[in-house]
């Protein structure tokens, strides 16, 4: 099921990309190089009809270029229908003319690592790009494992594209550093610009947003998701143009700045196509009520604070439930940033229609939660805090038979906090929600039995991320490591593409991963394993592995070397606080010229000069980047 990215922030790639390699991998590049560099080989192919792989019989062919032009026109018309980038990658490898035509017809480009290639390479190969998805920092940067100012700057991309793609319509960035100047350049350079999606980005403020709002007259989507937006004290809502807008989606729940509510009301009133609106916590319940009355066509709503500041007079209290009742189309609900639980029943009228519900900022107890969830029969995506307890999860299991994605976050994200959810909740979910595809579960205690049960009950699982918050914690009933549980997951969940492990794990768990994890693309490991063998099992056994992130695990040089045959086929490898030496990393860098080997932050410790604190390595078509800060050593 394809999920709309702007509704929830996604850690994983689109479903589309789950089992495919990214478009600009080295294989296609290798074919690209001879094409563009040598013109003589180019013309040889063109003028020798027998060599071109077309279906016209050789009797009708002459040595003129005419048949090739016909072929290319036909090809162009056909390739236009190819959307999937893996299909396009495959098509581009057929022969040079297919490569050429594919490059000229690809309009959406996905770049999983902004340092895998330079912006100019992008613009040289693809001439008619209208949509770019670009990802920057590695995921572990979200957890303070990387100093700020590491890189992933959007600036060189926007300035190169400003000249090459004046027709650009869509930019979707994740973990990139975007400045107000970048946003200003974007707004000025692309007159037809329609969609701006910034997920987990930083470096800009409300003034940059104001410029985009003001200058992008065709703007349909402005989604700021979990980004850090500085409050420049600019009334950016008022910067939207005065006339009717094309806005379909406006998400600003992460903007930590008050907004001009009157201007927002006016904006919503003149945006007849608006379907998705996600408010920040500076919008009160009363204001939400007014907005809802003016925008009953909404399908996705982020409710803002869901509270109010002053004591309300009871006779003046608006009928919140009536406002929700009028929103017959709302299927996705989030927000509740400062929830006053007594007002929660107002959402009852929409519960039966909800396919997506995000309570992950709302500290609600099981008693407040159960009456709500018992109405949500159609729910497919559910995010919540562990404050709903195992009891709440049991209620979810009883009602939400269509559940595909579950995320349970810790209200108190510390290693030794009280754990309101446990194996009981996981077991219940596994029994009630058989269609589950994706789970992220934070807990303090877990058992192998519950994890095994989930592996058996939920065969559709593609994403399994379990975080037992106490490091090295074993099965709390048997005292054994969690090897068997995770082993069962890789063995029984045949569609598994993403795995995050935790708890006490020996090398055995990794043996299972290597043996059974044949489709795993993304693996996250922390405080796990006993020896190099663990990492070797994974590197030698998981053929589809693309993204490997490891922290605080006892893996050393021998293990790293054992994967050298893999690294060109992976997007990146992250290893921090493991047992790597600089010498080994240098060897790898020397042996693999298209691999960029970054060692972060360990060169000032004289005693430990050879020790590598953080290794981040990734393939690149254009060599090491020029914007690396001082604390990054590129070997």
């Amino acid at each position, binding site marked *: 099921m394809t999920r709309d990215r702007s509704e929830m922030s996604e850690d994983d790639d689109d479903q589309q990309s789950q089992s495919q390699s990214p478009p600009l991998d080295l294989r296609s590049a290798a074919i690209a190089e001879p094409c563009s560099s040598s013109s003589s080989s180019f013309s040889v192919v063109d003028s020798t009809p027998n060599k071109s792989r077309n279906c016209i019989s050789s009797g009708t062919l002459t040595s003129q270029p005419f048949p090739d032009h016909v072929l290319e026109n036909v090809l162009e018309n056909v390739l236009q229908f190819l959307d999937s980038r893996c299909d396009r990658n495959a098509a581009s490898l057929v022969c040079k003319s297919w490569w050429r035509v594919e490059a000229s017809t690809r309009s959406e480009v996905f770049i999983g690592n902004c340092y895998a290639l330079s912006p100019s390479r992008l613009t040289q190969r693809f001439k008619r790009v209208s949509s770019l998805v670009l990802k920057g920092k590695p995921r572990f940067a979200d957890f303070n494992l990387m100093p700020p100012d590491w890189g992933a700057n959007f600036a060189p991309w926007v300035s190169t594209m400003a000249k090459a793609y004046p027709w650009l319509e869509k930019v979707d960035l994740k973990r990139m550093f975007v400045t107000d100047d970048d946003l200003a350049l974007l707004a000025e350079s692309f007159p037809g610009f329609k969609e701006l999606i910034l997920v987990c980005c930083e470096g800009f403020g409300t003034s940059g947003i104001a410029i985009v709002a003001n200058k992008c007259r065709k703007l349909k989507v402005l989604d700021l998701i*979990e980004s850090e937006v500085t409050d420049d004290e600019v009334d950016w809502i008022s910067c939207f143009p005065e006339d009717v807008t094309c806005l379909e989606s406006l998400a600003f729940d992460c903007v930590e700045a008050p907004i001009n509510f009157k201007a927002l009301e006016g904006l919503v009133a003149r945006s007849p196509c608006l379907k998705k609106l996600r408010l920040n916590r500076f919008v009160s319940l009363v204001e939400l009520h007014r907005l809802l009355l003016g925008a009953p066509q909404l399908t996705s709503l982020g409710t803002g604070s869901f509270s109010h500041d002053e004591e309300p007079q009871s006779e003046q209290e608006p009928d919140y439930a009536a406002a929700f009742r009028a929103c017959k189309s709302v299927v996705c609900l989030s927000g509740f940033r400062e929830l006053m639980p007594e007002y929660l029943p107002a959402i009852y009228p929409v519960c039966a229609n909800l396919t997506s519900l995000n309570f992950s900022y709302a500290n609600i107890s099981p008693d407040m939660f159960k009456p709500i969830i018992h109405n949500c029969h159609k729910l497919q995506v559910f995010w919540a805090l562990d404050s709903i307890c195992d009891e709440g999860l049991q209620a979810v299991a009883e009602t939400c038979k269509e559940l595909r994605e579950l995320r349970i976050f810790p209200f108190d994200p510390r290693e030794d906090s009280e754990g309101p959810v446990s194996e009981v909740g996981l077991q219940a979910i596994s029994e009630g929600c058989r269609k589950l595809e994706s789970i992220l579960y934070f807990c303090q205690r877990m058992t192998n039995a519950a994890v095994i049960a989930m592996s058996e009950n939920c065969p559709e699982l593609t994403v399994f991320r379990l975080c037992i918050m106490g490091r090295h914690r074993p099965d709390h009933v048997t005292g054994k490591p969690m090897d068997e549980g995770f082993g069962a997951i890789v063995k029984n969940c045949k569609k598994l593409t993403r795995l995050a492990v935790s708890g006490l794990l020996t090398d055995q768990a990794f043996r299972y991963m290597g043996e059974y994890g044949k489709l795993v693309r993304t693996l996250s490991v922390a405080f796990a394993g006993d020896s190099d063998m663990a990492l070797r099992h994974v590197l030698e056994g998981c053929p589809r592995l693309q993204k490997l992130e490891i922290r605080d695990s006892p893996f050393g040089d021998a293990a790293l070397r054992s994967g050298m045959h893999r690294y060109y086929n992976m997007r990146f490898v992250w290893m921090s606080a493991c047992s790597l030496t600089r010498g080994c990393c240098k060897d790898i860098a020397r042996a693999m010229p298209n691999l960029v080997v970054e060692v972060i932050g360990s060169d000032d410790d004289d005693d430990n000069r050879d020790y590598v604190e953080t290794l981040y390595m990734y393939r690149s078509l254009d060599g090491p980047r020029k914007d690396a800060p001082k604390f990054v050593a590129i070997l």
Partner: protein
Amino acid sequence: MNLKETELCLGLPGGAETVESPAKSGVGNKRGFSETVDLKLNLQSNKQGHGDLNVSGSIKEKTLLQDPTKPPTKAQVVGWPPVRNYRKTVMATQKNGETEETMSSGGGTIAFVKVSMDGAPYLRKVDLRMYNSYKDLSDALAKMFSSFTMGSYGAQGMIDFMNESKVMDLLNSSEYVPSYEDKDGDWMLVGDVPWPMFVESCKRLRIMKGSEAIGLAPRAMEKCKNRS
């Protein structure tokens, strides 16, 4: 069995539970970018937002950890559990917010008041207990509403209400002056009472043009005389 003792750990010598590295922010940092990060929590907006939120997030966490009613917890490992800073900050703000709600209903130790400025599109909120003097408040408001200046106050930051002509000069200028609603529901000029008394009695702030505030001056002087 405490498996942590057998854990392979490459932390700095003498570093207890924390698995630290020079490159990471957090406690006991040997070198670090966190030293260059601005530690002021609220008052400045700057583009080091990411760093600020890191530090302020961890500072808030430390405050929570040091709650005397809970048993002492061990030091936290950097980046573990793997919850995004963004989420941690939002939850921390909520937790502080909750304590505010419960306390302010008892008329207790938090004094959040709304601040509005004529012509500005939105309200802000300040916790008066964060400041020690009118000057501090003035600086903070200046940053919030950048076109606003508090005008000329006396050495103690109080308007000398006994000096009528000075007050009228101030009010006749086009500068903005702050006024506040006190416990009695009257709108007064800020600066008429000693700072601690002001914090107790101020319910709401409004920054208005000096010329509009003229009507408040006589009442302010009246009350001032009554108190002395």
